[in-house]
């Protein structure tokens, strides 16, 4: 391996600063979602950027740096895990979408048809995300929180696009169910006139 000149080294570091370090907040949020705990998340972020810096020569300029960092972050996280990743059966994505439509109908009947438009659910969303099974949470975090495409999320997770879609849709439906139950239990009103909050939600 050839040594970089001082000028090349400086250019490399500047590129890393401008192209990689700018995504630190995004990587931090992703790490937080993976670890479910802030102290571990910060270690993971540091590890991610150290690995990225050491591998910076392999990063192809012009490609999506944020997704590359997510991939490094996830691999670093998985290496630290001794637990078995739970394998969760995934149904057809479009059936999940139809189930979500049924859930919406149930929410409307219960007076929560406008829940997400009218109530601050920030804390409940954080808890619901943390409680999602890993496979579904990974997909939801990448697509819905980190704004990655299905294709980019598939690259990070190392699974086919169809698998991302199935997991994403299942994760969304599970989140909606959890948040609607939370709304019912907390007595929140979603904006509709019907106050029959005790109505059973479909599961």
């Amino acid at each position: 391996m050839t040594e970089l000149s001082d000028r090349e080294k400086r250019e490399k570091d500047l590129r890393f600063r401008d192209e990689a370090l700018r995504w630190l907040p995004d990587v931090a949020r992703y790490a937080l979602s993976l670890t479910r705990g802030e102290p571990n998340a910060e270690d993971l972020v540091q590890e991610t950027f150290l690995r990225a810096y050491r591998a910076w020569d392999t990063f192809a300029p012009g490609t999506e740096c944020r997704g590359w960092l997510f991939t490094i972050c996830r691999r670093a996280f998985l290496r630290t895990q001794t637990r078995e990743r739970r394998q969760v059966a995934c149904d057809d994505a479009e059936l999940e979408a139809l189930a979500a439509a049924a859930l919406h109908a149930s929410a409307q009947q219960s007076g929560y048809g406008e829940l997400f438009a009218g109530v601050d659910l920030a804390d409940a969303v954080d808890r619901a995300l943390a409680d999602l099974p890993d496979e579904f949470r990974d997909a939801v975090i990448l697509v819905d929180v980190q704004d990655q495409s299905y294709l980019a999320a598939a690259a990070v997770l190392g699974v086919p696009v169809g698998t991302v879609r199935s997991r994403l849709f299942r994760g969304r439906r599970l989140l909606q169910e959890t948040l609607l139950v939370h709304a019912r239990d907390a007595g929140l009103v979603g904006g509709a006139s019907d106050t029959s909050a005790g109505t059973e939600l479909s599961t």
Partner: protein
Amino acid sequence: MNEMRPFLDCDAVMRQLWDYLDGELTAERTEAIREHLALCSRCFPQLEFERAFLETLGRTRRRHANCDVLRARVVAALRVDGFAA
């Protein structure tokens, strides 16, 4: 121009509503679903419900924004590794 678009019923739209909101469909399919949603009183509330739900999730990203301390820590670790920018 009078282009023929594929006829979509409510069931077909519901199956692809999340793909539509995620911008993951072809231009032709997106337009066909948009046209259906504009006219269908059954599907439109579902669209609004799902859109609000996804915006709720998206706000999670914007809530955790201050990383100055963490950035300083990461840069310090990188400097040990030779980073000099």
